[in-house]
């Protein structure tokens, strides 16, 4: 028990050190590398958010590209048109996207699996169309140009400084989601994933909780969208298409469903492959598609399944850890 805890702490320490050292190692390698690093962490936020929805709660979404764009536009419009500070616009983009996610999540209450994928896929098509059409607000295809945020008088202009802002958001997100999953609400999400009927007969409000998890997942994705907009400093209707929604799903499936380390691993792997190969044009999507296909056929439980979790060897029965043990030892069973 104690050795296991030590092992966990040691692993966490290594990951933390690696995350803190990453920009100083990677960024001297050139601007493309620092771009890949920053984008990887932004996509980590999206992947963790999507895994909360898909891996932990069993609902598929092909609409996260659209949530990302909503976050971008909300944050850009608030800072540019209303001159609000980025530090207010960032959480507000989460709130607006979260409310939208709740509305999209309402039909999800009655849908599952393929039907939900189709319904949310429509959202990924609709948002770019609306952004293009509603040009009075969004400036159409000419786009918006939000600025890098500043801390007091210090502008986070360098990729290195911005990296730590994104990393901080990711860490806060992981802490929130980890605690959420241990709470009554989080257990309700997982109960719904395992069996809606069993959850309902145990007094879980299935409809409300399904819409709620959609809303939380969308909210975090909105934060990623805001971070992206102020990082790239350009927002246009073509930023994220339905193909990006595919990539987000690929991230969590390649990394590992219902696993936060899996989401992070998957986001880094898929994003790096995608960006590094982007100069090869069409070959890039062939490569990414092939990785998705091979990952599903060869490692159906994701890359994280390749390592044996320490507590998988001897199951614990303490009341505190039981939720986590069942989550990681048993296969994530997504209906």
């Amino acid at each position: 028990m104690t050795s296991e805890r030590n092992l966990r702490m040691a692993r966490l320490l290594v990951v933390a050190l690696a995350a803190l050292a990453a920009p100083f190692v990677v960024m001297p390698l050139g601007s493309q590398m620092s771009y890949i690093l920053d984008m990887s962490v932004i996509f980590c936020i999206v992947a963790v958010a999507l895994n909360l929805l898909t891996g932990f709660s069993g609902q598929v979404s092909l609409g996260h590209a659209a949530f990302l764009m909503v976050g971008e536009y909300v944050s850009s419009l608030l800072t540019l048109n209303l001159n609000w500070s980025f530090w207010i616009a960032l959480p507000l983009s989460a709130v607006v996207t979260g409310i939208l996610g709740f509305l999209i999540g309402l039909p999800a209450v009655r849908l599952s699996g393929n039907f939900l994928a189709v319904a949310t896929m429509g959202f990924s098509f609709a948002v770019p169309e609306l952004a293009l059409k509603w040009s009075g607000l969004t400036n159409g295809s000419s786009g918006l140009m939000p600025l890098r945020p500043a801390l007091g008088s210090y502008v986070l202009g360098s990729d290195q400084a911005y990296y730590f802002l994104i990393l901080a958001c990711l860490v806060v997100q992981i802490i929130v989601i980890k605690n959420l999953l241990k709470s009554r609400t989080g257990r309700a999400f997982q109960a719904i994933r395992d069996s809606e009927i069993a959850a309902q007969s145990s007094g879980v409000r299935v409809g409300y909780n399904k819409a709620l998890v959609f809303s939380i997942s969308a909210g975090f994705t909105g934060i990623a969208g805001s971070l992206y907009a102020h990082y790239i400093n350009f927002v246009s209707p073509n930023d994220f298409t339905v193909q990006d929604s595919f990539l987000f799903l690929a991230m969590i499936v390649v990394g590992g469903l219902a696993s936060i380390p899996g989401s992070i691993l998957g986001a880094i792997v898929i994003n790096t492959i995608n960006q590094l190969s982007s100069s090869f044009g069409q070959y890039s999507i062939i490569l990414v598609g092939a990785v998705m296909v091979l990952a599903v056929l060869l490692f159906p439980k994701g890359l994280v399944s390749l390592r044996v979790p320490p507590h998988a060897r001897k199951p614990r029965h303490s009341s505190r850890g039981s939720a986590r043990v069942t989550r990681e030892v048993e296969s994530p069973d997504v209906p």
Partner: protein
Amino acid sequence: MLWQTILSGLAVGSLYALSAIGLVLIFKTSNIVNFAQGQMAMLSTFVAFQMLTRWGFPYWLAALASLVFALVFGFFVYIVFLSRLKRAEVLSQIILTLGLYLVFRGVAGVLWGNVPFTMPAAVSTNTVHIGSAVVTWYQLFIMIVTLLLMLVFYAMFRYTKTGLAMRAVSQNQQAARLMGVSLTRIYGATWAVSTALGAIAGLLIAPILFLSPSFMDSVAVKAFAAAVLGGFSSLPGAVLGGLVLGVMESVFGFYISTDLKSTFVFLLIIGILYVRPQGLFGTREVKKV
């Protein structure tokens, strides 16, 4: 004017219906939603295009080759990829077909580039007057081909042994297997036929749109919408769903806005699924505990 809008809606709608039937066929027998269907249709259409314009074959031969290619292609995709998924996990299936979507799109981009081509049509696009409406021969041709295909399909399901086996598999896999039906063969056949249906839709719609690796995207999303509208497990539902969608979209485009068609389709899907999660013609799935 309204009649004309409805007629052109029916023509487009029958193309949605064809693609939707392909989706529903696969879903009914193997419970898989094939997200790569549009891309497979796109590749098959490019095969016809290649023979027609680059190698100078006559239209009927090119179309036939495209259909044969689609049949083999669909069978191959099922045998090589989908049949290898051991457990029927919905998410793995979705990811697998999405991965194939990207691969097929990339392959088409490598082979033919992203410049849109003009695809020759099977019949002339001259106009003809029906009552007060003006439609093209091509639109009539599309509707007639669709109608004929539906009849062929109905007959195939009703009267042939393969059709009977497909119906049996969609009702109860275990029982069908015990009666000596080979699941692999039936699944493979379903994939082949569905891909061919998509290819026909692609061949018919390519002259209206431009031919490019992404030209089936908008059709594919509407085929999904049509299938959802019809309940995803009902073939007549898919046909009606496609026609209803085509007409509504056409009327919406004419009277309100053509730029917001996808948004309209999306709102329609969400709205219908909210009121009737099993679609307009689907049967409610009863879960046994």
